[in-house]
């Protein structure tokens, strides 16, 4: 594995311009101040309530996601490039999903293999032949991006279902402004606080065409026992929309209503944070008590918008991911600006042979997996683990893809021994409305707190950082 690129000190230790002020400040500030502020931040998080889930009924153990007080900084020019690439990528994602449930031109052109779509558990035949309002499927995308050198950003994953984490992006900034006013006064940092406004504008813009008054937008949550419940209530509050559960809604004559103190009120747009499987027991899992019976009928009749649309998981799949560069070219006729991580599809014989020969240096992932589970990190795995994985791979090669072990970029991070480089990724949130694509500058930076670790997922001990996009 190559040496990691450090976003502050590059390869050679010379501070990169975006980090000038921060690096000077880090040199001035006594280490115990950083530690003190870190603990202060934790207290604030508890009070503001990111930890409300922590006090969860039976198990009071759900953790606070570690917060690192040293910001991650992107230069304006870097961000402008990412912004263009993200916009392009998400446009292509939307066109792809529309095509898959419509004309299927990309399948007929032989660019993406049929069975990858039709035999995919995330494919929803119920959506075939139905259009969605304004032809937008992925209203909110969380595109995970990693950086490997000064010029190269790779897309690691397209989260096209119900990406979470945006409340951390917003709260991290608020906490930083409170804790480090003097550091802010030395920079000009693009704001993120307008995200709720942008999200609301996006959701309003995709209301069904038949809605002539101001659309009624709601946020649908599985309820208080969901681990992201805090984020749901946080967002509903910031958006100024009702936070509803399935039982607050009902469907009559293919129209969705909510039960209010003033009687029934029509619902036009549902920002749903419930997975496809649970959203309508009449169509999907009959044992779901979270969803709304009849929702799909209202949806198919075009009387309500779901954000994100049903069936977007098809673009979330790691095997489909490997076709994204071709997908971008097919629909937009442009070269993709953001690269994919080179990916071997184990479903293809030659690729599989290569992967089996190079297991010790590759990362192998399940195509439908997420959250960093069920994967093999070759260079870090024991011989036994590799052999066990080899057997799994041979039995069901279709379920796996492989990628080179990449040296994720690092950023200075507060750790027990002081300030040290740790690997990071970036999840910007891309909003697609009927009028335009909106992205607030930056996103959520996740950081692997353990030395050398490449796993940034919060479910596995990763932390977060505030992400700054500077002028220039």
């Amino acid at each position, binding site marked *: 594995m190559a040496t990691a690129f450090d976003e502050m000190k590059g390869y050679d230790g010379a501070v990169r311009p975006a980090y000038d002020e921060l690096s000077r400040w880090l040199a001035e500030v006594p280490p115990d101040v950083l530690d003190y502020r870190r603990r202060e931040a934790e207290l604030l998080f508890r009070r503001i309530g990111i930890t*409300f889930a922590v006090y969860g009924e039976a198990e009071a153990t759900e953790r606070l996601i570690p917060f690192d007080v040293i910001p991650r900084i992107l230069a304006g020019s870097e961000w402008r490039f990412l912004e263009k690439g993200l916009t392009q990528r998400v446009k292509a994602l939307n066109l792809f999903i529309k095509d898959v449930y419509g004309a299927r031109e990309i399948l007929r052109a032989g660019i993406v293999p049929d069975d990858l779509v039709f035999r995919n558990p995330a494919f929803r035949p119920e959506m075939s032949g139905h259009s969605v309002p304004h032809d937008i499927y992925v209203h909110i995308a969380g595109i995970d991006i990693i950086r490997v050198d000064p010029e190269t950003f790779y897309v690691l994953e397209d989260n096209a279902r119900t990406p979470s984490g945006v409340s951390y992006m917003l709260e991290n900034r608020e906490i930083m402004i409170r804790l480090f006013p003097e550091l802010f006064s030395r920079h000009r940092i693009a704001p993120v606080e307008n995200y709720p406004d942008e999200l609301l504008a996006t959701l309003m813009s995709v209301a069904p065409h038949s809605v002539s008054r101001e659309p009624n937008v709601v946020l649908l949550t599985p*309820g208080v026992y969901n681990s992201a419940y805090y984020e749901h*209530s946080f967002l509903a509050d910031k958006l100024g929309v009702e936070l509803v*559960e399935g039982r*607050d809604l009902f469907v009559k004559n293919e129209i969705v209503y909510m039960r209010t*103190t003033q009687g029934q009120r029509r619902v036009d747009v549902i920002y749903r944070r419930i997975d496809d499987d649970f959203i309508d027991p009449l169509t999907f899992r009959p044992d779901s008590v979270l969803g709304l019976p009849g929702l799909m009928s209202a949806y198919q009749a075009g009387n309500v918008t779901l954000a994100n649309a049903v069936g977007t998981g098809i673009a979330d799949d790691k095997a489909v991911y490997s076709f994204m560069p071709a997908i971008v070219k097919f629909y937009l006729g442009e070269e993709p600006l953001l690269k994919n991580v080179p990916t071997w599809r184990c479903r293809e014989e030659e690729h599989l042979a290569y992967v089996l020969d190079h297991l010790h240096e590759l990362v192998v992932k399940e195509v439908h997996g997420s959250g960093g589970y069920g994967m093999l990190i070759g260079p870090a795995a024991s011989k036994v683990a590799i052999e066990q994985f080899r057997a799994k791979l041979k039995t069901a090669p279709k379920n796996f893809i492989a990628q080179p072990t990449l040296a994720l970029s690092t950023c200075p991070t507060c750790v027990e021994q002081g300030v040290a480089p740790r690997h990071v990724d970036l999840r910007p949130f891309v909003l697609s409305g009927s009028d335009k694509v909106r992205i607030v500058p930056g996103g959520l930076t996740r950081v692997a707190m353990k030395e050398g670790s490449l796993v940034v997922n919060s479910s596995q001990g990763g932390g977060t950082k505030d992400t700054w996009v500077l002028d220039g």
Partner: protein
Amino acid sequence: MLSRTADNLYWLSRYIERAEYLARILDATQRLSSLPLAYVGTSNEWESAVATAGCASAFYKVHDEANEANVTDFLAFSSDNSSSIRSCFELARSNARAVRTALTMEMWDTINGTWLELKRYGNGVTSREEFSRFLQWVREASLRYDGSAYRTMLRNDAFWFSRLGFYLERADNTARILDVKYHLLLPENERVGGPLDYFQWAAILRSVSALTAYRWVYRESVKPWLVADLLILREEMPRSLAACYETIVRDLDHIAAGYGRQGPAQRQARGIRSRLQNSRMDGIFQRGLHEFISEFISENNRLGAAITEQFLI
């Protein structure tokens, strides 16, 4: 607003109010039980506490007789009793969590903080002293919630539904004390039990935090018919039935004004209020205090059902 949100706010207030009421009953009972038998007669005050709390049938399902230990545990700490102080706080907190966006930070802080502190009493208490501190803490929690709601909430339907919960529960609680103790509250011209009953009357007043108020209103020693007057008809007494209904009618009117229409709940509440306004104590005694109170309790329940029907489902 969502019916479920309104329902949660309404019940949240009811649970908090109920917890405070239970704490007051327990406090008053504890005092009574420390008096020599010669002062309070032979009646079992713990039995009467269970009845006043309105959970006699649930209590006697698990206990054969009422004594200090089992009543204290049942009313304050038992998880089997869905109306114990512990259960009230737990229900309040889970309601609060479900409607986080409708609460102000201060209200959430109070509920969440109370719930966290409740863990300290996980195994009940070991001494009377500790129990007294517990009861004091319960009352303070209720005051904090009430105060933070009053001071920080927007005056919109969320606020009025939350207030309704307090006052409906309070009216029910006051009526329940009267219902259990009505035989002690005799009209002026009847022979009064004498000093034996004095402490019982004082305990009733204490349960609704009205002992001092009584003296300021009547400037007399405690007389049973005046106790009844204070708790039923006196509008300046914040826990009297009349005062509760003043507020309930006003809150429902605020809701009606906001929504631009009156409904059955508003009409029923006004009906109950005018009956209270047009009543006098001698008339009530003539027709029977017990009958009057029983009728009130069922009317109050009917209003609760009408509010649920009109707004909360």
